[in-house]
């Protein structure tokens, strides 16, 4: 483990029980995370991409410490729990509607130590200025703001406890393009100023390419490809990463939409598929795909696919 990592995840599994039989035992488990190994570097931005149901948000909860993983270990190289903060996707529901803005912003501080009101207000005014809100907004309530402004409030709140790591869970996907650009610029400026570490969860590859140093592509609770974002996004090795990148509509494409995809459904995460998780949707599936895949280092990234890395597939205990 290198010294400049703020967090290290090793072999994280997260299972949620569902249903109950007559003795109160769960009928089965939803396997949300299936062995995540990640090292999060200080002062960098890690992008986590994948489709809905791939475990991005569960990963965010594990990183935040909201959920304890069923298996595996999270090592944190910083002081207290409140040194990880989060900005949620939906600025409507993530701000307390009954609190004035200054209270919303200073809530993380107030929750840890009850400080005098004047001190909290001063902190709020300071942070509001930092995220580009005018000082007179402090006494207003969240419903009086537009989506972009609310997301600024959420960012100010995340900054208030002076965290080391901020988890950004799709912070711009509810915003319009012009407002998204404002928020992304703000996030970049704040990172340069405070040396923050971001974990940026998104399904928008163009935003990830713009903002992130590293990218981890997730599929069914596993990281299937992880590496420097320009390398991974320019030359994807895993068939799923390639499919994901090909599917993104771009302004430059001229060839129309092409042929319709055959199968776009994610396999169930209640009964995990045997062998490679992507096997059923993969065009390259062949011999060797019947066993679980390992992350194999390539030149610039790590890839979990035996067909493209030419690694000998190993039997991994499920």
């Amino acid at each position, binding site marked *: 483990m290198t010294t400049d990592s703020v967090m290290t995840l090793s072999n994280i599994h997260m299972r949620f029980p569902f249903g109950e039989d007559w003795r109160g035992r769960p009928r089965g488990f939803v396997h949300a995370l299936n062995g995540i190994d990640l090292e999060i570097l200080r002062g960098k931005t890690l992008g986590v991409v994948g489709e809905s149901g791939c475990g991005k948000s569960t990963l965010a909860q594990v990183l935040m410490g909201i959920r304890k993983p069923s298996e595996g270990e999270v090592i944190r190289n910083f002081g207290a729990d409140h040194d990880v903060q989060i900005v949620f996707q939906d600025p409507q529901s993530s701000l307390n509607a009954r609190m004035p803005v200054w209270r919303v912003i200073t809530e993380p501080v107030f929750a840890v130590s009850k400080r005098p009101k004047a001190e909290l207000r001063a902190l709020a005014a300071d942070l509001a200025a930092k995220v580009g809100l005018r000082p007179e907004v402090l006494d207003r309530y969240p419903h009086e703001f537009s989506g972009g402004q609310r997301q600024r409030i959420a960012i100010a709140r995340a900054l208030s406890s002076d965290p080391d790591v901020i988890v950004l869970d799709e912070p711009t996907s509810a915003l319009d393009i012009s407002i998204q650009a404002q928020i992304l610029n703000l996030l970049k400026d704040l990172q340069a100023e405070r040396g923050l570490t971001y974990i940026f969860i998104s399904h928008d*590859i163009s935003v990830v390419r713009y903002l992130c140093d590293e990218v981890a592509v997730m599929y069914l609770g596993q990281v299937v490809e992880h590496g420097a974002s320009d390398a991974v996004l320019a030359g994807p090795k895993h068939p799923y990463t390639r499919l994901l990148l*090909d*599917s993104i*509509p771009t*302004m430059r494409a001229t060839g129309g*939409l092409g042929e319709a*995809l055959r199968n776009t459904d994610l396999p169930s995460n209640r009964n995990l598929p045997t062998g490679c998780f992507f096997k059923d949707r993969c065009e390259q599936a062949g011999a060797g795909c019947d066993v679980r895949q390992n992350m194999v280092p390539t030149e610039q990234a790590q890839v979990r696919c035996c067909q493209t890395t030419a690694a000998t597939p190993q039997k991994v205990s499920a």
Partner: protein
Amino acid sequence: MADPVLKIDGLEVLFPGFAGDVHAVNGVDLDVQPGEIVGLVGESGSAKSVTAMTALGLLPTGAFRQSAGTISILGRDVATMSEREMNKLRGGDVAMIFQEPQTALNPTKTIGKQMLRVIELHSDLRGMAARDRAIELLKDMRINDAEEILGRYPFELSGGMRQRILIGMAFACSPKLLVADEPTTALDVTVQRQVLQLLHAKARQTGASVLFISHDLAVISQFCDRIYVMYAGRVVESGPAQKVLGNPQHPYTAALIEALPEDADPGAPLASIPGTVPNLVNPPKGCAFQARCRHAHAACDSRPVLTDVGSKHQAACWLREEISA
């Protein structure tokens, strides 16, 4: 040229409110020709959906007032049509696909029941013939075990599957016009691609016109023949998709494209548009984009009209006015 499938002239719509009327649509002219796929793009609050909903008479009566303008669908003026006639039109010759496949399907009825209802209401097919038609539609949408799906409830299916069923249903009675309001916004990218491909192929195959509403410039650029860019209830630019997005003539369109992180250099800040959309309770007198525009000057205090800036390419901006004059 044949008659347009949908023609909107000078449409103005306002929503009465306590704090004053919200002027949502402020003079929109729009037409959709037979077989054409037309895109309506803009940010939230630009009145893309309100324009389409008004055209199909889907806004609740009493909640809005159409203060000016005419709408004609398939050559008939909507204002002269009774509710009964509109009901016959909607779902038959004109179909609509909504953004959220969760809420557009009835959760208490099976897919089969809902599809058969549409087919039996708008065509002569009954019983097994209608059922066969439903299966055929689902198969066209690449749904493998169609017979089985007919017996399922919406909650048992994935979002992409539900949206494909809705598209199948929309094409049930061979519509001449299909209005798709952000049909893929709630879907993942791989599913989005599949749904767009199927929709595109089906529209071309049946010769239906599509009015496609989206905020996603990239989707619009790949999907549409011609587009209208809307801002604050007005059309600011229109023309062939490749022309408008490749060589934007209105500062708003240009700024929107620049704000995309797609081509941005990861080191440089993004070209964001300062400010926010104007409050439509008091819509600006002149150009609606004036307050956020970097080229704003004195002429912008009066409202620019759409002027030709190329073949079939129009923009509503005083800068272009001067160039073409």
